[in-house]
């Protein structure tokens, strides 16, 4: 039989009471244990979609919506497969920002707001159009014509991306990759500017590319027009652009040769005439 001494019994009681006090202090004293549960922010759905069919890169800065080419309507990019529209931010998410701004304004006070108002407003300067940036390869000394061209310049500039939007039809290359290829070929295409009806000389070249990104073959697709010597010259100028050593190897992603083994390049000079 075990016999517990009286003093030992007292120590046990004291220890029990002290542990109880500590436990109560933890419950009462630490506020976080009483704080309401965290509100989890509303999840925002983000869809990763292929940007290949549409580009807006060259629209930046022009402030204009890329216009489609009326003369050569290209098929619209296919709608993304089962891709839900990106979720719009919930209104309740915008509200805290307003509140924060209001609180900040209150904190800064009216003086700061007056100082803000006293600052001259920065108005965007009209874009300075560099005549060298005109896309037209035809000379024109007429000031009136120049003004017209300046007015039209954004349209011409957007002709690239606009043409890119309908013209880049690829689910194999991203917009950046396609633009890189296009910019490369543009540096090698000697446009037949002075030919009769040069704006109508649209040439399509079917290109087969080797895995090392060199051109295996570049065949003129609309070869039925080759009896016309002017068209033939235009077609051969497009073909030379692709076969030009300056444009070899092609600016294509090296590790995805299966994606760009075949392609069709469409040379349309009317925007530079």
């Amino acid at each position: 039989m075990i016999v517990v001494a009286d003093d030992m019994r007292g120590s046990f009681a004291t220890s029990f009471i002290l542990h109880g006090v500590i436990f109560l202090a933890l419950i009462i004293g630490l506020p976080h244990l009483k704080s309401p549960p965290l509100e989890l922010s509303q999840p925002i759905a983000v869809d990763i979609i292929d940007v290949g069919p549409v580009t807006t890169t060259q629209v930046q800065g022009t402030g204009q919506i890329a216009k489609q080419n009326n003369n050569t309507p290209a098929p619209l990019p296919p709608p993304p497969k089962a891709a839900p529209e990106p979720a719009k931010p919930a209104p309740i998410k915008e509200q805290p920002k307003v509140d924060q701004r209001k609180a900040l304004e209150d904190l800064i006070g009216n003086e700061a707001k007056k100082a803000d108002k006293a600052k001259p407003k920065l108005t965007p300067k009209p874009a300075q159009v560099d005549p060298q940036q005109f896309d037209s390869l035809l000379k024109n000394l007429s000031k009136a014509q120049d003004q017209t061209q300046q007015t039209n310049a954004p349209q011409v500039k957007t002709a690239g991306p606009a043409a890119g939007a309908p013209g880049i039809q690829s689910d194999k290359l991203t917009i950046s990759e396609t633009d890189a290829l296009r910019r490369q070929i543009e540096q090698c295409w000697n446009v037949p500017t002075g030919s009769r009806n040069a704006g109508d000389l649209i040439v399509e070249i079917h290109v087969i590319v080797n895995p090392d990104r060199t051109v295996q073959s570049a065949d003129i697709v609309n070869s039925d027009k080759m009896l016309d010597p002017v068209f033939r010259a235009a077609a051969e100028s497009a073909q030379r652009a692709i076969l030009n050593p300056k444009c070899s190897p092609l600016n294509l992603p090296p590790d995805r040769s299966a994606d760009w083994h075949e392609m069709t390049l469409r040379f349309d000079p009317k925007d530079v005439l």
Partner: protein
Amino acid sequence: MKSFTQCLPNLVCSSARLLVCLVMMTGAARADIHVDITKGISEPIPVAITNFASSNSGAAQVGSQISGVVTADLERSGLFRQLNPSSFIQPADQILAQGPRLADWKVIGAQALIAGTVTPTPNGMLRVEFRLWDTLAGDQMAGLAYTTTTDNWRRIAHKIADVIYNRITGETGYFDTRIVYIAESGPATRRIKRLAIMDQDGANHKFLTDGSDLVLTPRFNPAAQEITFMSFRNGRPRVYLYNLETGQQRIMGEFPGMTFAPRFTPDGHSVIFSLIRGGNSDIFVMDLASRHVRQLTNFPAINTGGSYSPDGRQIAFESDRSNKQQIYVMDADGVNPHRISFGDGQYGTPVWSPRGDLIAFTKILGGSFYLGVMRPDGSGERLITQAYHVEGPTWAPNGRVLMYFKEQGSGYKMHSIDLTGMNEREVVTPLDASDPAWSPLLP
């Protein structure tokens, strides 16, 4: 359990479906990447023109001269650039004998290769052969041979340049042509003006008149080696015809008034001109064979400078009937005149392109003269050069290049310019030069 023969049709059907799917997928993959190229550059095409080779030393010298003229023609067009011959990687005689190493020519930057030979024939003639290759595509684009007398080597060179130009640009060449113009000399108070003619590159220059009579506005017959011009012979301004092959001159006709601004119809059978009568200027056309004259305009204003469209159906002319000098177009029978120039300034000297797609004109605006082009409906106006005084545009027979004259220092000089507005350059002449007229291609 089904037997194999029972399953066979299903297997075949499934295989066929699979094949169709694969074909469709392949087709879809082929059409996957489409890229629009909507911008480019405009610069001369780099070409390699080798000396035309020959085993005969005399013929080799002619071959070198021929390649020199071909090179100069093509470079003057502004569309071609000869590569430095020191970079050529294959001797000229090897090219035709063994074939060109196009891959090597491509490496030095040549997009086209031209090589030829000159061979004396037993009857004292020269056989000139040339070939043109596309170094990038690896194809021969043209190959021709000419036989001619030795002293005709320049024309052979021009013809070769025409073939190369035509094959690469698609446009007809214009190098085997001539220019007739007014050569001017002497002080301003006693200016001597002579009709002169030369090849388009300035070679074979000669004077057609001695300067005793004032001559103006020579114009070539588009269909023959004949010119019409205005002369003040015996103090009377009249229109003359000059046959360049026979040297014969004749007055176009006697009219009760001053005749000026002559120009041939596209078929060369008639001449359109202006006639001042009773203080009024109107446009007439005369059939050179029958001498029948027909009045085309009848309006109390200045109507002059008629120029036919290449199909002969319309005429561009200048008139101040709207109180300001402007360009009008009417049908060939004089009906349906309508104004086509509506910009600021005054428009004059319309000249219809042989290609038919453009009308060249001069324009006075803000104290300066401009040379410009517009479409026959007046749209697409472009001013391509400017000077204190620019006048007398004339088209190359291919409608690609314009020649004109402008005041330069104390005198006039002729210049040529591509219709794109690029490649403006002076046409070198022994004396001051004005009023150029470009011939058709020589026969």
